[in-house]
């Protein structure tokens, strides 16, 4: 059996112009990494969005995934939360297993 370790997977959907602010905060919280995935469109309380046809960043969303140690998760969430209080976006956390504990 493969030996696995419990980590937290933080998934953030955020408006594109604020992406640098988010990654700055992740870096400050000491996460070991993150991955940015494109988003085509979405719907939320503010209505429907779509990236199609947009020449600029406003009105576009991106998704950021970061696998963090459970011990760091609260700090990361705190920082992300204060950002999301002002910017458009959502954040979720879930449990994941990883193989190389030292990588995260």
């Amino acid at each position, binding site marked *: 059996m493969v030996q696995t370790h419990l980590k937290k997977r933080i998934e953030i959907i955020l408006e594109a*112009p604020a992406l640098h602010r988010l990654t700055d905060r992740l870096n400050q919280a000491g996460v070991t990494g993150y991955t940015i995935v494109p988003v085509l469109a979405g719907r939320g309380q503010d209505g*429907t969005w*779509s990236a*199609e*046809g947009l*020449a*600029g960043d*406003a*009105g576009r969303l991106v998704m950021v995934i970061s696998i963090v140690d459970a011990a760091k998760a609260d700090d990361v969430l705190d920082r992300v939360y204060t950002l999301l209080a*002002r910017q458009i976006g959502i954040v979720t956390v879930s449990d994941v297993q990883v193989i190389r504990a030292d990588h995260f």
Partner: protein
Amino acid sequence: MSFLELASQNLVSPMVLFFALGLTAALARSDLSIPEAVAKTIALYLMMAIGFKGGVEVAKSGITALMLLVMLAGVLLSFIIPVIGFFALRAVSRLSAIDAAAIAAHYGSISIVTFVAATEAVRGLGLPFEGFLVAVAAVMETPAILSALLLARRAQPPGQVQGEGESAGALIREVGLNASVVMLVGSFLIGWATGPKGLAMIAPFIVDPFRGVLCLFLLDMGLVAGRGMREGARHLAPPVLAFGILMPLFSAAVAALLILPLGLSVGGAAVFITLAASASYIAVPAAMRLALPEAKPAIYLTLSLGVTFPFNLALGIPLYLALAQRVGL
């Protein structure tokens, strides 16, 4: 030419019709769309083409006092228009100070596609215009943002705006380095450095197909504007809607007065007035999401792209041309 002649000629140009096609398709809920990657690239292409061509013109004419004066006039307008727009909005609508400031910033800044549409209309009449107006467009992009920030801060309890702890300087730096400004200014400088010889090398890419590419981009803008209108219309109260049409007219009048003494050509005056009357829809919205995230994007994006841009494209530009015939040389 009279305004009516100018307007009717303008309305049947492929450019305006492709915009109308996009608008109609979006309102009819067609799935027609231009992929984001392509829309972004066409926008860069337009910046490259007009920047380069403007730079080549300046290489030919050299730096003149007129150029410096018009640039100064542009910067001034970019600072002042938001102030006027802000107080107008606060007076006639129930928008919060933050929303009013964010909207006002858009009208102080400029829209490059409106600029291009004006140059095409001017060219269509066989009129020349000063190449340095590209540089004027570039310097008018950002001052409005600073203006709007100061207005928003004045109106807010301290500490609430810019809570992010980002200095206005950092923000202005970020905006100044945004993709469209860098592409426009960079291409302008390269056009300036390489002159007509450089232009001859790449004209089959940036000159010949330019109008066709513009049609495709206007189709895209029509699609985005139509989608925005469908989603955002309910966010626009009548006074705000009216602002989207009256503010450009007001800015045009102020711009016309300001350049009256400077002696721009008729074509150049039309383009300058159009710059003042146009509202940003790429650079400023992104900046507002960072600087004033509490301002509702549904309002300012819909107003700039769904109201002011179509108005300028269809009726504004012929109007500014008619106006320029009175103030230009």
